């Protein structure tokens, strides 16, 4: 299982999706914003669990759909420096102006990474395109197809 850019992997279980997230986290730089795309139940939160475990986050990672953003404190194993994992779900937002009022820009800095579900409004707001991870259902109930796009 290799998660370099342009790669596609087929995850056979939640465990494998978590492992894929953990491996992918090695490629994330502090300050980076990453888009996560996929339908309900396609494995986005599991993938974030994997990323968070790479940063040694102790809190339970759960869905940000209602709260819009969950924050977790961890440390970058490469540098030992503290890092905040911001897990967004912008599904409930309708206008890019809302990002300004929730204080979106305050979450983006060199001491944190941002993982964003339904990231279109954030891309419009910042006027840039994010590196993306796409999630899709496989043939079997537990199977997920995870696609990594390069920047």
């Amino acid at each position, binding site marked *: 299982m290799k998660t370099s850019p342009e790669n596609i992997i087929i995850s056979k279980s939640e465990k494998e999706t978590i492992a894929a997230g953990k491996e992918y986290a090695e490629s994330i730089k502090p300050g980076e914003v990453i888009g996560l795309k996929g339908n*309900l*139940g396609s494995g986005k*939160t599991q993938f974030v669990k994997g990323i968070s475990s790479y940063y040694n986050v102790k*809190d*339970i990672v*759960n*869905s940000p*759909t*209602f*709260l*819009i*953003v*969950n*924050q*977790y*404190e961890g440390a970058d194993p490469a540098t030992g420096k503290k890092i905040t994992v911001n897990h967004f779900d912008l599904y*409930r*937002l*309708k*206008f890019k*102006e*809302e990002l*300004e*009022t*929730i*204080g*979106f820009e*305050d*979450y983006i800095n060199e001491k944190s990474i941002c993982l964003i579900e339904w990231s279109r409004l954030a891309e419009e707001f910042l006027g840039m395109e994010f590196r993306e991870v796409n999630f899709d259902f496989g043939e079997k*109930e537990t199977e997920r197809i995870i696609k990594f796009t390069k920047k």
Partner: protein
Amino acid sequence: MYTLAFETSCDETSAAVLKNDTVLSNVILSQYFHSEFGGVVPEIASREHLKSIVEITEKALKEANIHLKDINIVAATSEPGLIGALLIGLNFAKSLALSLKVPFVPVNHIQGHIYSSFIQKEKFEFPFISLIVSGGHTLLIEVQDFFRHNLLGTTVDDAAGEAFDKVAKMLGLGYPGGPEIDRLAKKGNPDFHKFPLAHIKNKPYDFSFSGIKTSVLYFLREINYIEDNNDKLTANICASFQKAVVDSLFLKAKKAAENLNIKSISVSGGVSANTGLKEKFSSLINKGYRIYLPEPSYSTDNAGMVGITGYFKYMHTNDKAIFNDVTFNSRAMPRIKYEAV
């Protein structure tokens, strides 16, 4: 003692006035907008909230028939929530406290939900088990005394209310989906289909609702629901799904109460309005349990719960001087710190 309280952690902007632990007024922007402007729901944490906080405050004072100069303490949600949204209420409340020269009490939103069950109710006693179920949270807490909380469990993926809304969406029902599923479930057969619930190894009090959501999704595909459905089928799925979620919440809360030998359970948060959940917990009353449920208006996010929690916090803190110092120091904390709950 009069408290003026604010809640602006996420979607809602709300202000309340309390006399001791009694809520005199509880004004919530979305409801206010709804009635005053004919169904215009404001956008999330928008500038509208910032603009309206003065208006909401004036309305809360007027409804309570209290003047600003009569206020003894000001309370506001300081954590957790959206940073931009929290700051609207927090900065407004802190400035107000400073100008009135009264103490400012920062309130944890989750603690607000814990004490929401006791607004306009008869006296309550410690200890009790608190189950908080909303769109954003699913938490099981042992409450030993005022502000002595022991977190027992939480959801490891989706919140219970979120599962309701997502399944409602799959079934093509309206938003918010919780009340709609609840309504249809009454007409359906809860034993129509058994949706499985995940058990988390070695964590008897943690919840998981992501699996049931996926399981409903695959079930709908299997029966080709989109092409071929009818009211009876929808009602049956709603009833079966609701039973699975309610059973999970109920059994874990009951198990916690039994294991800790506690005979009182509080259920709060938006999902506490669910009929199935209420019935299930009410069945424990015959077995010698006390069940605390908030009035529906205090189950979703509101400033009344922030007010009662702020009032209790102020009354049960020996060194009240800290509430004069915090005016400038108190900062918005977006992260949920489970150890603080």
